[in-house]
């Protein structure tokens, strides 16, 4: 294409998108296909276990585990993978337990990670819904689900969760709730996929604990079979050995 024509075309497209909406003009390849409505976990075995090749977009996902079972490692792997695809990710740190060093060790680009530290439980879910609806965010990680559940009024929690679900269905965002205290999880009916992690053994290197081996069980899967599982090994970032 001639340079002049191209630049003029570029300007017209930009002005149209500014005037109306960014989605009014799109390349054909950018229009979502059914098989693209998933977020890969970056672990091929787990993606295969989930049957649709990853975690579904536009749904509530729950990871539950006892502490130190690798749930944060799994969540950060998901986040790092999304960031590699230039997708925006937000982390709602309601439990105020964000460990920047560990996240950086799991290849998370901290400069691209928006961290939200709300003081009120209902605000956390409301911010998650807004980010999903208007922020063009690919993954929202909400930590921790049981703290929100405990501190929020049950009716408000139910209402906020429904609003979040409705927003997610219209968007391509995945809301990932982490429950790191109660392995049974706190969103048994709201989540489309619920993965439970149980620590099997510590992994050692030169006598020190260098990682953890956990059993991942699919407790609930709206898009495939539930009940399957596999063992995964999570190695800590090297400096922590």
């Amino acid at each position: 294409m001639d340079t002049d024509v191209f630049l003029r075309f570029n300007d017209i497209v930009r002005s149209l998108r500014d005037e109306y909406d960014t989605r009014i003009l799109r390349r054909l390849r950018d229009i979502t296909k059914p098989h693209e409505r998933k977020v890969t976990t970056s672990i091929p075995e787990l993606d295969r276990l989930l049957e649709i090749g990853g975690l579904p977009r536009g749904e509530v996902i729950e990871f539950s585990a006892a502490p130190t079972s690798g749930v944060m490692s799994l969540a950060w792997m998901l986040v790092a993978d999304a960031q590699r695809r230039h997708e925006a990710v937000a982390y709602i740190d309601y439990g105020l337990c964000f460990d920047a060093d560990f996240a950086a060790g799991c290849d998370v680009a901290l400069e691209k990670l928006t961290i939200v530290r709300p003081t009120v439980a209902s605000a956390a879910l409301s911010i998650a819904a807004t980010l999903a609806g208007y922020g063009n965010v690919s993954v929202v990680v909400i930590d921790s689900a049981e703290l929100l559940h405990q501190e929020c009024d049950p009716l408000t929690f139910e209402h906020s969760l429904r609003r979040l679900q409705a927003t997610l269905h219209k968007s391509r965002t995945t809301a990932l709730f982490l429950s790191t205290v109660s392995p049974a999880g706190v969103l048994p009916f709201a989540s489309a996929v619920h993965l439970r992690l149980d620590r099997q053994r510590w992994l050692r290197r030169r006598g020190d604990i260098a990682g953890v081996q956990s059993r991942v069980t699919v407790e609930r899967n709206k898009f495939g079979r539930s009940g399957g599982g596999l063992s995964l090994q999570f190695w800590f970032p090297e400096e922590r050995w």
Partner: protein
Amino acid sequence: MIACVRFPFFPASIEERDDPTLKRQPLVLGGQAWQRASVYSMSQGAALDGVRLGLSLRRAQLLSPDAAFNPPFPKHYNDVSGQLLERMQDWTERIEPTSAQPAILYYADFERDKLPQATLLAREIGRTIQHESGLSPSIGLAEGKFSAMLAAKSARVGHVLPLDHHGRLGFLQQHPLRTLTLPQKLTARLNLFGIGTLGEYAALPAADIAQQFGSAGMTLYRLAHGDDPRPVVTPKRPEHLDWSHQFVEPVVNRQILRRVMQQAAGKFAEQLRASLSNARGLQLTVETESHQTLVQQESFSEPVRAARHILFFLTAALDRMTPVDGVDSLTIKLNTIAPIQPRQLSLFDDHILTAEKLDGTLEQLAERYGRKTFVKAKPIRPNSRLFERRYGWEEYGELLA
């Protein structure tokens, strides 16, 4: 036309972009002022104070007492440089990266475009890079590399300086002779003749130059006239890339193998990016404890360059293998390296839109819930022995500033 995209004080401008508080004072990179090390790079403020590359840090502190002293992160600068190179390939595949410390230069060849079109493209490159990377280049446009480089040096940051065929002679004449890399002996002789600028050198008779200074003098004479036949040289493309890893003891755990392959994929991606090429296939060879050799080959349906794509195919190849015992060594060969085909300009660059949209939403949310609610983690003391001291918070207001 050749465009020279110049990022002056490149490492320091990356540091200032990452931590805007550093903009308030001159910046010297190399380490702390009390360390026995030399200046790796510096900001414009420090250069104006007289700080030069290779100077000892103590001397630099004497020259610029108000300067901030930080350790350099060359890998980070290389990564940013690679990203810039990759981004510029959207416009032309003929790009030559050159380092002229403390600046970094990229020569881009728009051979089919005349000056007005090339100027528009150069402006578009400058705008896009500034928007995406937060770094402001100065761009010079001319028919030869030398004139383009001088134009980029003279242009203000964030601006394009185009030189047409007739205007370049007048532009070149005013520059001092030291802009040419002359042999010391030649410089001394020219000084004796009282010749100090390119214009004065270019005004000498060509026959006399050839007689007095030989072929080296004539090459420089042509440059002083704005005649620079040197083409833009893209980095040499290798035919294949090899990588191997020998384990200290046999490995059965596939996660460890995957981790090693992840490192290999990262290195391959760096090499492919540096040579502006793609790979079309790979061969994975695994040797086991019992001297069993397993080989798997993969052909890519599309040319591949990203580390995650290479890792995906490596993992697929490994999954098809069933070594009976521990793995002793891994050898990976990336073959059929091909040049990158030019892509369509980024009309609908999604991640830029995503960032803009997210910023807009965060602005509204920050007004409602308070700016302190939205933060980013930023490294404060990356080398501290205590994990909790390595990172701090950056509030949303500061992010925007």
